[in-house]
């Protein structure tokens, strides 16, 4: 006796494994973000301060030579 044939096709959707880097709450995440911003600003401020000091130092090194040249120039004028 012929037995009825029944196929079955199943289509399970794709499963997923999500990677979470942190389980922080929104408040903690915001705090962490702001701390990062503050740290960047402090670092930037220190860099600016360092550059300012370098420029100031460079300017001071050049000033005595300028003065000496001015003196020489004055003395030359006088001798003439």
């Amino acid at each position, binding site marked *: 006796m012929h037995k009825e*044939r029944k*196929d079955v096709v*199943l289509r*399970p*959707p*794709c*499963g997923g494994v999500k*990677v979470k880097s942190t389980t922080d709450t929104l408040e903690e995440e915001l705090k962490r973000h702001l701390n990062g911003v503050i740290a960047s600003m402090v670092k930037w401020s220190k860099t600016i301060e360092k550059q300012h000091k370098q420029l100031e130092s460079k300017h001071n090194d050049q000033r005595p030579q300028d003065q000496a040249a001015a003196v020489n120039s004055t003395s030359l004028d006088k001798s003439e």
Partner: protein
Amino acid sequence: MAANAWIVYDKAKERILKGEAIALGTHAIRCELVTTDYTPLSTAHEYKSDISDNITSSAQYPSGGVLTSGIAITRSNGTITFDANDFNFSPTSSVTISAKYAVLYDDSTTSECLICYSALSSATGPPAASTNGTFQIQLDASGIFTLA
């Protein structure tokens, strides 16, 4: 027929990340069909021995389930996809296959570590069944599961 997304066992996630036992790209991965007597517990089950009621092997059902072919692990825009060819259980004579879950496990490991499972019908619905025909699990175009 409505089948549900593959759920990766917690222990499998740990093994994959630690590089312990499971090697999806190189090992023999099998798909086992399981009856309604099994209750999956993704947080605790880790070995094939935890699957209490797999379909009894016979001439019409390969022992341990079908071997996964065409395994592909690909990466695109930060998403890693684990994919393979569809699973086909094709009896050559009159037989009924009735299964509630499909379970993938690593057959190359001594303990046969579980990887993931899919519920083949709704929680309250009857199991999926074929009679004298093909029992096919057609994998989604997006693969079996992704890591993103």
